[in-house]
């Protein structure tokens, strides 16, 4: 402490106070600012604490070192070591009426003046103060003072003490130390050993020495350079750290010959080393001109006795502030808390966190361990859906039966939350594909039905013969445009795009109406315009403008649609008109892509529609429909090819319209999965109607497998079963083979096998239960050998008989359950048995038995059948979740 570099000390007992000392001593009080504002005049130490200056003491010049009195009372007593070797007792803001007033100002003077390097209060005998001094010829360098020497308050009355203290300063000088040690040497650092109050460890000039005050003639010492900053581990009293230059040495006092360990050397010299007082084996070190505090977490250090274990030391560093750190101090009681001070006396209070280990649970909650504490953190439910991770989205979608609406296929996008335009496009595409496949199959079975699922790319390719274009009149305008004559394939494409409905009618009217209803004014207007109906387009825009005024700002943007309509109505066919000029330049400033393409279309030269075709913000289906209407066969093929590749590259689900569920579609879906991880959509999409060779694609199988695995992890057993059923409809080979057969005890034949020979009962052994129809014969004996089937362990009736309603189940509150039971009646009659003890019976009976019992129902059998299967005990999560 050279006067410029401040040091910092926590009060040992009043733990909300600390002292900063450079040329003077400043006492601060720390307050939490969690629930209060920063007070005027206080300094912010961290996000939630601030310090207020309580008092300043500048009585003691030439401070070299400071040590806080360890006893409770008086609290603000400090010993200051000065450059001339004197040790002065001083206090900070303490009431001067205390009985210890006589101590304040007391000075302990060595024989020869030299710098005082270090001070250490004895932790047990609180009046003993050790001071380490520089060398002065043959003089002693370690002096132990008794601060009460000369004055004994018991003997000398209080008044007299105060009087004498006030009268002359000389009476406060103490020159006779209790002990003098370390002759002919210098002392750089000191610490008392907690093993015994009479043991003092000192870092001398070239050695570490242990002085025993019971026998001062002897000392134990070891030659080393690492003599600075000796300090004892508060949790492990034989472990001592000291340093020299950039190296820290760890000593074990039981084998005090060499360090048990030296820590990796730092490039800059160390200035302070301190053990954390609140946690075992954590050593903080500070080097000169550095803004980080390096921590050594000593999980295991070698011990001199026993086996030679390798050390496990975890090196860490913390950066409490941006400036260089002058000094730091551990808080005596708050866990891992420390305060640091910079050369310009800014302070910062912070806590060193333990290394945090963490783990995600499958249901998106995060658990972490910090020190000895565990924290769980779950995603809040009311989150904005846009921020939700795909894991949460997929889970919620699985619960809402996403992908399972096979009738109104488009509805799946609503089940998915109706938030993702790509999903919307995908499910509409799949919906139309399904619809038209069925349509085609009805018209001409086996003809083009499969083509629909192959996407527009294949449809367009398959079109034979040239398509002629013809001139069509604009309605409401004196103008003509070339439009391709629509052949069957183009009509199908337009249908898939959703522009026209089923049937031969090529009217876009219904489509426009539905768009208008959904408030998609701009899109509707553009579609109307592309169908050469400018009047309808203007009318739609006007409608939109009026409904916007009514409070619907959904598509307002910054533009009044009336203005657009006005601009539109000014359309002129003249090539060099002002209108054309203005539109070409200003259309680029329109925010809405549909408005933009409308003007692009109107101002385009005949046959070049790039402004429409390559406007990426316009939905793919509209652009493709537009292309089908206006492009010639070769142009169309090229355009579709190009767009397909673009979609594949981007993994844009709108592109499924083009690729269909083909290999191309799998490629596209692969990019989508790579980008989003949404295997759920990928699986359901591919299971919608892909041909078997696509379904067998390794990638598709892998997505399906991954999605099933997710459902398993979430314990969505029922959802997975539904998924498997859905899957087996398209891919019968995915149906798992029966894994269990019931064989007769007597003849050994499978009872279901022999049963399936009976013509009208061919569906496995599930019909062994009672069936709803009373006409069906109840099979209670083996169909092979006619011996009776085993008896249920609970009802003691032969298997194959129906389950009677639950015993004692006539209570009214169980009525709901009963009705539920009936639904599952089939299952209740199933055979079930324990794989361990081989006892069993009707599934329904067994389930109700194990609801209340742990052991097997067969008397004298102690098998805990149900507990053997730990996964069997897992409740499906669907029932728990909302």
């Amino acid at each position, binding site marked *: 402490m050279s006067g410029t570099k401040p040091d910092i000390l926590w009060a040992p007992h009043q733990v909300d106070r600390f002292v900063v000392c450079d040329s003077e001593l400043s006492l601060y009080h720390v307050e939490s600012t969690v629930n209060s504002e920063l007070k005027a005049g206080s300094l912010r130490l961290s*996000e939630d604490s601030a310090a207020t200056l309580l008092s300043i003491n500048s009585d003691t010049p030439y401070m070299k070192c400071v040590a806080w009195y360890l006893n409770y009372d008086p609290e603000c007593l400090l010993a200051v070591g000065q450059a001339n070797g004197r040790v002065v007792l001083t206090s900070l803001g303490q009431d001067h009426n205390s009985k210890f007033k006589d101590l304040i100002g007391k000075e302990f003077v060595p024989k020869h003046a030299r710098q005082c390097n270090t001070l250490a209060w004895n932790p047990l005998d609180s009046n003993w103060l050790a001071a380490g001094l520089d060398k002065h010829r043959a003089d002693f360098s370690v002096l132990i003072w008794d601060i009460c020497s000369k004055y004994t308050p018991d003997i000398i009355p209080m008044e007299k003490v105060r009087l004498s203290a006030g009268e002359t300063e000389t009476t406060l000088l103490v020159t006779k130390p209790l002990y003098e040690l370390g002759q002919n040497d210098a002392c750089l650092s000191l610490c008392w050993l907690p093993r015994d109050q009479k043991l003092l460890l000192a870092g001398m000039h070239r050695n570490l020495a242990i002085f025993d005050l019971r026998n001062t003639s002897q000392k134990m010492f070891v030659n080393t350079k690492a003599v600075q900053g000796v300090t004892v581990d508060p949790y492990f009293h034989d472990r001592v750290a000291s340093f020299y230059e950039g190296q820290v040495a760890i000593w074990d006092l039981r084998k005090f010959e060499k360090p048990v360990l030296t820590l990796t050397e730092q490039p800059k010299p160390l200035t302070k080393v301190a053990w954390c007082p609140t946690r075992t084996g954590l050593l903080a070190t500070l080097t000169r001109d550095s803004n*980080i505090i390096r921590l050594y977490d000593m*999980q*295991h250090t070698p011990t001199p006795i026993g086996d030679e274990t*390798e050390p496990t030391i975890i*090196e*860490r*560093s*913390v*950066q409490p502030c941006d400036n260089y750190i002058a000094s730091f101090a551990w808080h005596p009681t708050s866990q891992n808390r420390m305060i640091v001070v910079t050369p310009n006396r800014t302070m910062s209070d912070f*806590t060193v*966190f333990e290394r*945090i*280990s*963490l*783990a*995600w*649970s*499958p*249901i*998106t*909650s*995060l658990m*972490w*361990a*910090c*020190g*000895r*504490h*565990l*924290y*769980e*953190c*779950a995603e*809040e439910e009311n*989150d904005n859906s846009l*921020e939700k*991770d*795909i*894991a949460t989205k*997929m889970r919620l979608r699985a619960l809402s039966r996403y992908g399972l609406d096979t009738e109104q296929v488009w509805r799946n996008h609503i089940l998915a939350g109706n938030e993702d335009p790509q999903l919307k496009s995908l499910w509409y595409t799949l919906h139309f594909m399904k619809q038209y496949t069925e349509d085609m199959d009805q018209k001409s079975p086996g003809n083009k039905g499969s083509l629909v699922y192959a996407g527009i790319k294949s449809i367009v390719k398959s079109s034979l013969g040239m398509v002629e274009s013809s001139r069509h009149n604009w309605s409401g305008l004196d103008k003509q445009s070339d439009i391709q004559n629509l052949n069957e394939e183009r009509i199908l494409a337009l249908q898939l795009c959703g522009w026209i409905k089923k049937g031969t009618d090529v009217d876009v009217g219904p489509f426009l109406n539905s768009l208008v209803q959904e408030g998609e004014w701009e899109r509707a207007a553009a579609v109307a315009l592309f169908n050469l109906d400018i009047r309808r387009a203007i009318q739609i825009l006007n409608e939109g403008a009026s409904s916007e005024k009514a409070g619907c700002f959904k598509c307002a943007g910054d533009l009044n649609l009336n203005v657009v309509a006005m601009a539109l109505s000014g359309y002129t066919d003249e090539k060099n008109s002002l209108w054309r000029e203005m539109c070409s330049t200003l259309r680029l400033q329109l925010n809405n892509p549909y408005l933009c393409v409308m003007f692009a279309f109107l101002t385009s030269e005949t046959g070049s529609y790039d402004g429409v075709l390559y406007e990426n913000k316009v939905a793919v289906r509209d652009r493709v429909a537009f292309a089908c209407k206006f492009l010639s066969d070769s142009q169309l093929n090229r355009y579709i090819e190009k767009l397909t590749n673009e979609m594949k*590259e*981007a993994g*844009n689900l709108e592109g499924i319209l083009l690729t269909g569920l083909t290999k191309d579609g799998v490629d596209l879906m692969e990019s989508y*999965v*790579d*980008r989003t*991880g949404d295997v759920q959509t*990928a699986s359901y999409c591919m299971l919608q109607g892909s041909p078997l060779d696509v379904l067998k694609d*390794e*990638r598709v199988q*892998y997505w399906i497998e*991954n999605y099933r*695995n*997710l459902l398993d*992890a979430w*314990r969505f057993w029922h959802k997975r079963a539904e998924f498997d059923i859905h899957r087996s409809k398209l891919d019968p080979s995915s149906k798992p083979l029966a894994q269990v057969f019931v064989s007769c005890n007597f003849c050994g034949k499978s009872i279901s096998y022999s049963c399936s020979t009976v013509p009208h009962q061919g569906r496995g052994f599930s019909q062994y239960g009672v069936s709803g129809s009373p006409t069906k014969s109840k099979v209670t004996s083996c169909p092979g050998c006619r011996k009776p089937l085993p008896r249920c362990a609970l009802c003691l009736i032969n298997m194959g008989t129906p389950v009677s309603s639950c015993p004692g189940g006539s209570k009214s509150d169980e009525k709901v359950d009963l009705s539920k039971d009936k639904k599952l009646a089939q299952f209740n009659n199933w055979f079930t048995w324990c794989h361990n003890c081989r006892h069993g019976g009707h599934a329904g009976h067994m389930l109700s038995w194990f609801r209340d019992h*742990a052991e097997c129902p067969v008397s004298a059998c102690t098998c805990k059948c149900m507990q053997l299967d*730990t*996964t069997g005990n897992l409740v499906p999560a669907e029932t728990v979740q909302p």
Partner: protein
Amino acid sequence: MFVARHIAADHKDLIHDVSFDFHGRRMATCSSDQSVKVWDKSESGDWHCTASWKTHSGSVWRVTWAHPEFGQVLASCSFDRTAAVWEEIVGESNDKLRGQSHWVKRTTLVDSRTSVTDVKFAPKHMGLMLATCSADGIVRIYEAPDVMNLSQWSLQHEISCKLSCSCISWNPSSSRAHSPMIAVGSDDSSPNAMAKVQIFEYNENTRKYAKAETLMTVTDPVHDIAFAPNLGRSFHILAVATKDVRIFTLKPVRKELTSSGGPTKFEIHIVAQFDNHNSQVWRVSWNITGTVLASSGDDGCVRLWKANYMDNWKCTGILKGNGSPVNGNSQQGNSNPSLGSNIPNLQNSLNGSSSGRKHS
């Protein structure tokens, strides 16, 4: 976005690892107090400690669950140079009544001469396999040939990494297109510029693990490593905790039909690198879909990282180690002014380097 809740862990010393089972219904923790605790989640969502027992004679570094298909099985590894496999048994005692379950040691794996630093079960489709790594730089792969007998484990492979190992991660992909793969990180802190992450791949022909890749750019000590759940992606994602958080993608270069045999080649790209933890990063963990990464570091915070649709990774949440939010969520940007400004720059430079990635 997230709220944290404290759970009384009751460990007597530092907790080193937390691990969830396949369903997230059970959790295991291990500690310097030489014990492992098993926690079960109640219907109400609270965690109850259902077992706590002394597992080792030293700090227990890691604990991990086997797939439930193999029963309720845990593995732990420790400073005491061993790894152990534990199985829950349905005891004759009335432990169940007290809400306690009983775990028995099935085997002790004693091959390591030094502290065993990590232990991980292989993905389910590989059977019941276990990998350990140790401070002496050897990765050992054990297999239980009979899944019904957990007391017999045979040492199948010993892979020498030449550097003290700190962490391992199996590639979870079950696709037949991907061979079994394991990534190993080293915390060797000697000042050499050796690469600290090595990736080994199983070769069907030689029936051995051979080095497939080395992440040459990672030269600082690595504390944790984690493959993301593959989830049907055509590439693998690997997170590395070193002096910063790094995320790599490994895209298998499609094997030519002719070149069977040799190790798979990968196009490796670093897609994100964040030094927001200021200093060492200790742990990384992926969520179930491999879309959100959580990391912890010496700044005492847990940070969450997520990629947007452009494959730009961003910090989406910061939590203090003691569960308190970082100065309220609204001020998230303010309290960490460097956050907002750093990432775009970083991302730009990264995008420049990772030209192989597709951008929509």
